């Protein structure tokens, strides 16, 4: 029931800043400076309004497009056609340790650098495309999909002159450019180009606050607190439940003899009204079984929304837990990676069962990888090249960029980059979303486009 908000092993500054970012993404709050030169997240200045869409059955926080009356969104959502292709972005927040997700377990250099955090050879599934690598046991679900040819792995993705600040590097990934000060995300610019001016569902964050990646300049986008809508959960079932709510409404309608009493009465009656208005919202069922956690539940809701025909183009969601594992990495990484991968596998199976798998592509990313040499706290510090995955029935399923090995590291003793994240973006835009990357990614012409989608 309760989400794990713990970040035992994180550096405090990071955790704090991460919260600030989510606050900033809620627009209008501004972002206090944390580090000199830290970029403001894209989308910081977007206005936010709450909107209840009866037609979509969702309580949405709508971002941007402040001049459009909220009622127009209702029409917009109702009229927008379900789009053909959907891109789902899953973010490993904090910099996931790619050398543990796809580990060169048999490498003696690896064993030297990771006396405590190395994976034992054979402890996880083999990685068929490079026998020197193996999956983390907690990533078995991803290995299963890889075995079915549905996963394109990037074992060392990044960019030249890597920045080891969470905020700066994450900002680069979010905006699709090595600059600070962009106000729109790379997918936000895509939505500005192809989106509808009255359909906020086209860009949807399943995190309660907007991902800067889908921050637009003009077109509305949305975030939702919960895939379950607005419910008043209790230990009471039907039919007594109905009588309970009748009495709840009655308590809200009684006269008030003080201002404070008036406040409680008003809040009570409005809450009950909203409950009735949104009755049945988020009431979905899944054809497959999902793991019992919030991340999986969000994905289950998402699959149901896609099946329902909600007009979404781009969806973002944060992977469970934090990946800034400066201390006691092993347990946290195992738990969070397992939840993520098992959730993604269930989501893929759900889409397959519903016959929707050819419409959805998942991209998993992180702002950087971690230092090959572990630190003294059973953790790892910020590194350079990291990992990314493109997952789906239509994914090409072929590794992009080789694993660079640990013999030669970069000047900061970090893993060298063998693929550029902007190349991945260009391919996703052109091959999956069918849109010219030149208009979205600055300098797109200069990036090699890996083949990510089946021909």
């Amino acid at each position, binding site marked *: 029931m309760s989400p*794990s*908000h713990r970040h035992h092993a994180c550096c405090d500054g990071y955790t704090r800043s991460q919260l600030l970012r989510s606050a900033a993404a809620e627009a209008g709050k501004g972002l206090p400076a944390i580090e000199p030169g830290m970029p403001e997240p894209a989308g910081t200045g977007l206005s936010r309004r709450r909107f209840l869409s009866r037609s979509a059955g969702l309580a949405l926080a709508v971002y941007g497009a402040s001049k459009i009356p909220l009622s127009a969104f209702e029409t917009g959502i109702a009229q927008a056609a379900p789009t053909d292709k959907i891109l789902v972005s899953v973010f490993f927040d904090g910099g996931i340790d790619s050398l543990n997700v796809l580990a060169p377990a048999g490498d003696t250099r690896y064993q030297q650098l990771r006396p405590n955090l190395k994976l034992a050879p054979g402890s996880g599934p083999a990685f068929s495309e490079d026998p020197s690598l193996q999956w983390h046991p907690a990533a078995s679900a991803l290995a299963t999909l890889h075995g079915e040819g549905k996963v394109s792995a990037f074992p060392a993705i990044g960019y030249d002159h890597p920045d080891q600040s969470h905020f700066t590097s994450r900002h680069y990934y979010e905006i699709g450019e090595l600059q600070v000060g962009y106000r729109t995300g790379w997918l936000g610019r895509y939505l500005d180009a192809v989106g509808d001016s009255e359909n906020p569902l086209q860009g949807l964050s399943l995190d309660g606050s907007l991902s800067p990646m889908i921050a637009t300049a003009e077109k509305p986008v949305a975030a939702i607190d919960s895939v379950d809508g607005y419910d008043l959960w209790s230990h009471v079932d039907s039919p007594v439940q109905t009588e309970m709510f009748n009495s709840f409404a009655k308590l809200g309608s009684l006269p008030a003899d003080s201002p404070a009493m008036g406040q409680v009465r008003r809040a009570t009656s409005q809450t009950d009204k909203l409950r009735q208005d949104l009755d049945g919202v988020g009431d979905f069922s899944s054809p497959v079984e999902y793991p019992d956690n919030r991340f999986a539940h969000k994905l289950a809701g998402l699959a149901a929304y896609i099946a329902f025909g909600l007009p979404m183009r781009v969806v973002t969601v944060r992977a469970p837990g934090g990946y800034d594992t400066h201390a006691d990495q092993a347990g946290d990484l195992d738990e969070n990676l397992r939840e993520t991968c098992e959730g993604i596998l269930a989501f893929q199976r759900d889409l397959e069962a519903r016959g929707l798998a050819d419409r959805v592509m998942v991209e998993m990313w992180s702002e950087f990888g971690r230092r090959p040499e572990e630190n003294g706290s059973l953790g790892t510090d910020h590194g350079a090249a990291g990992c990314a995955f493109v997952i789906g029935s239509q994914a090409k399923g072929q590794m992009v960029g080789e694993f660079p090995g640990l013999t030669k590291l970069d000047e900061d003793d970090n893993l060298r980059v063998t693929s550029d994240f902007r190349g991945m973006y260009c391919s996703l835009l052109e091959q999956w979303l069918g849109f010219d990357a030149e208009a979205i990614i600055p300098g797109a012409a200069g990036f090699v486009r890996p083949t990510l989608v089946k021909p």
Partner: protein
Amino acid sequence: MTIPQEKPVAARPKTRRRKRRRVWKDKHFRWVPDGQGDWKVEAYLFRHRHKPKAGHSRGPGKKPARQAQAAAATPAPASAPPFDQRPPDAYQGSFGTTQAVRLLHRAGFGPVPGQAEQLVSLGLVGAVQSLTRPGGTAHLSGPAPRDDDGNPLAPGDAWGHDHLWWLDRMVRTDQPLVERMALVFHDWFATSNANVSKTQQMIDQSNLFRARCFGSFLDLFKAVTVDPAMLQWLNGNENRKGSPNENYAREMMELFSLGADRGAYSEEDIREAARALTGWRNDWSSELGAYNFRFDPKRHDTGNKTVFGNTGAWGWEDACRLCVEHPLHPSFFVEKLWSYFIPAPPSAAVRDQLTATYAGSGRQILPVLEAILTSPEFYEGPPMVKPPVVHLASMLRALGRPIDTEAWIYICDMAGQQLFWPPNVSGWDDDRWLDTSTMRARWLMVTYALEEIAPDTWNDTYSTTETPDEALAKAIASWGSPALRDEHRAELLDLAKRSEKLIVANWQKGPYRAMRQNALLQLIGVSPDLILQ
């Protein structure tokens, strides 16, 4: 060596019985005439613990005249208990359970079962004093707080455990007013984790509030001014000679001691006070965050500054003192403190009287606080909406439930109040606790609070004969027997009857009654009776 055939069973820890500490009565507390037709409190002469040092403040006003001391010896009216000698401007009505419950809610986090009755026996003044003069260190009784995995909290390290740590103190302390005043000052000097490098520094700040919440406001103000969390939050650590940072100087006047739009200070006063506050700094490391906070004379501007018309080579302590000695500070102080306990502002006459008490006491918090907690407005005035953490803590106290889940972190956040995360430097807005979003959170708060005691609907053990009256009585008793308004009780009884009419088959008798019990428990939790204080 013999190998045990069965896994050894660890001895069950003995359930410790909750100790009720006897409430301490201050024998030295006395209201005495001041010789000018008014009353004053003799107990503030600091003689109940230690003899005052030579030259120490003697408390409010001059030493009482001989005649007045003699008058004080006159026995109190026979109707009042001997220790309940109320000053004439105090509340004169009956001090029964209703009044004690209000006192326990606003000056604490509500009663544990039986506590209100215990307070009644002390009389108004004795009851208030038992809260305002607890003496000694606080005792936490009952099971220690745990996270969802059953582990002890890590308040300085784990996300949100700082919130649980404080919530636990609210639930288990025997000095509830200390925690409530710490909450008051957490809002008054609102500092947030958002710009403080270590959560432990936030916790340390709250301990500062606990230690100084009844004493001299100037001492508190000075301690807060150079508190590491505050130094980071309002950039006091970046305020240096030649490049002053005005952030703290402005808020210390506007929010902490004088108030905006009262003509108390000018922009020039802020700039000059910022210069006086220069010199504090700290070191930084990625491991420790901000640490080693200290005053560095090299960073201090030693020149003359003119603040509120007073010129001198002022330093940070002078800046605090000048604010507290400002003629408009006492009225700001008493009105602000009042607002935490009583919803409508005091009349001009009451305000002036409190202001005089404050100024006369050498700007001590305690006499004003005691005057507020014994005032007629406190007991006769309208109710207030409980802040979310007070609503939650009061429910957990009533239910006897310890902190055993991290759900309280996000539920309180949803309800609008995560401790150590006030929305901004002006704190929480006490007039806006309730809307459809935060009300839903309060509903869920009640659902979660009832998790342990809600009868299982389908386990076939619930009574099949319970009457509506019995059902309601049981639900009220489960909540520690709070007083319900007649119209609420009537509606709940009606619900109990309507629910029973839904039973049409034999198998429904028990399960529907269990559901009915849960419905009654739920609605009591979200009723005005439990949301208001």
